[in-house]
């Protein structure tokens, strides 16, 4: 009968459209959709690999950290014995933590196999752990929620496709990758405005974040001359040139001074806050 034929046609057309497929979701999920894996150079021979390490210091008085009021989110507030503070400046004994350090020049056209070990970022007590992290293009970032409250992970990237995903309950996990090098990508949670993290994406595996003592180490480098760049979320970026020979360890110690100005690093899209005229219809 005519009627059923029309119905079949509709059904077939719908299925045909539906099976067009295409990945859903911002950012690239999983590992299969990472950037093109270019022809990889052989991994650096460990017998000759070099290391660059250093300590980042801060001279002067850092602005005091501010208390974070989590009283509106008791599920998180209850996880703290002491008052949680902002992380803009983490200075211990004159050493600066949470500085992202990476090789910005000197690797030439070399490409590197993507490290498949995943990098984790965890939301615990309504904070991101770690606060600053480095990841390679194509490397999986596993985002985990340990709090039983809604967090959203809102990346404000400009080179990579930004994503904004939610994790409404504890135990949820999502995986994303970044296709393009970008320093830095700010990450925020819109439900808990004090939550910030920063992700540095590099094509090479040569990046590190300074620890509480301001120390960092970048290993496995091919011998050569490199520009090392250090980035701090409040203070900005600075660079220095380091040359390392085979199996050498080169030093790259930076100092940030409270009175000096450093190169700003453009991050994400600027916030446009609109205030307007009074309500008059």
């Amino acid at each position, binding site marked *: 009968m005519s009627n059923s034929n029309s119905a079949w046609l509709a059904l077939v057309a719908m299925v045909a459209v539906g099976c067009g497929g295409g990945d859903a979701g911002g950012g690239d999920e999983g590992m299969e959709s990472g950037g093109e894996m270019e022809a990889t150079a052989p991994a650096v021979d460990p017998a000759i690999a070099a290391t660059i390490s250093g300590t980042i210091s801060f001279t002067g008085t850092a602005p005091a950290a501010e208390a974070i009021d989590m009283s509106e989110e008791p599920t998180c507030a209850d996880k703290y014995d002491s008052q949680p503070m902002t992380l803009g400046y983490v200075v211990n004994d004159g050493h600066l933590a949470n500085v992202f350090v990476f090789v910005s020049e000197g690797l030439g056209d070399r490409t590197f196999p993507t490290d498949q070990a995943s990098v984790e970022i965890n939301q615990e007590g309504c904070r991101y752990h770690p606060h600053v992290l480095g990841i390679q293009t194509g490397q999986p970032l596993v985002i985990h929620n340990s709090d039983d409250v809604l967090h959203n992970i809102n990346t404000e990237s400009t080179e990579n496709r930004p994503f904004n995903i939610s994790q409404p309950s504890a135990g949820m996990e999502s995986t994303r990758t970044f296709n393009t090098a970008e320093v830095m990508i700010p990450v925020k949670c819109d439900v808990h405005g004090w939550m910030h993290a920063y992700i540095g994406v590099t094509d090479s595996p040569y990046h590190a974040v300074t620890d509480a003592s301001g120390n960092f180490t970048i290993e496995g480098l091919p011998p050569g001359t490199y520009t090392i760049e250090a980035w701090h979320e409040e203070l900005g970026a600075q660079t220095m040139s380091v040359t390392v020979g085979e199996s050498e360890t080169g030093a790259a110690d930076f100092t940030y001074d409270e009175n000096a100005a450093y190169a700003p690093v453009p991050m994400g899209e600027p916030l446009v806050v609109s205030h*307007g005229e009074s309500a008059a219809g």
Partner: protein
Amino acid sequence: MDWSLPLNISTQGVQIDNLFWLIFWLTAVAFVLVEVGVLWFLWRYRAREGHRARYTHGHLGAEIVWTAVPALTMIFLGIYSGRIWAGIKSPDSFPKDALTINVTAKQFEWNVTYPGADHVLGNDDDFTIRNRFEIPAHQPVVVNLESEDVIHSFFIPELRVKQDAVPGKVIPIWFEATQAGDFQIACAELCGLGHYSMRASVVIHEPEDYERWYNEQTGAAQTAAAD
């Protein structure tokens, strides 16, 4: 769930609730008339052997009655509602001695800006608290609502207050709480994935307690500014 409106702690809320229940009783009468009428007719006028339907096309008198009664009821409701609406929304009805607070909505939080020690908004001693709205009872409050990004809606159920916050506009509303207590602001306009979690605490103090709280806050703000 219980079939009632929440605790009413608002001067405006009394009028709103009264109107709600007035409409409830009027519609209940109409409801019973229609539903019982329909069910009764279904039974009474069911097809039966030997019974034939009436051949009638209408009755002007009946039509006039059931046009006029609803029309008069609507006119009455219109006048009554209009008075209450004007009393809440008209610029003349805004109290002159109100405490004014700015509330800026954004995905997904409420930033509440208090006027500071000088009790004047818009200068340096204003302080902003995220997700906490603290006001005194028994005093009119004016809220200037703004939004940074998309439309949100400022809804406090027990105060019977709801106003959309529209980016690009500053919209003032006023209300007065009749008792102290702890409540919440809920966002009542879809604003994104965090819409269901966009809440803030509403703490209503007795006036003396509010003084004390306020001074603590302005003291703390001054200390912070001095650093």
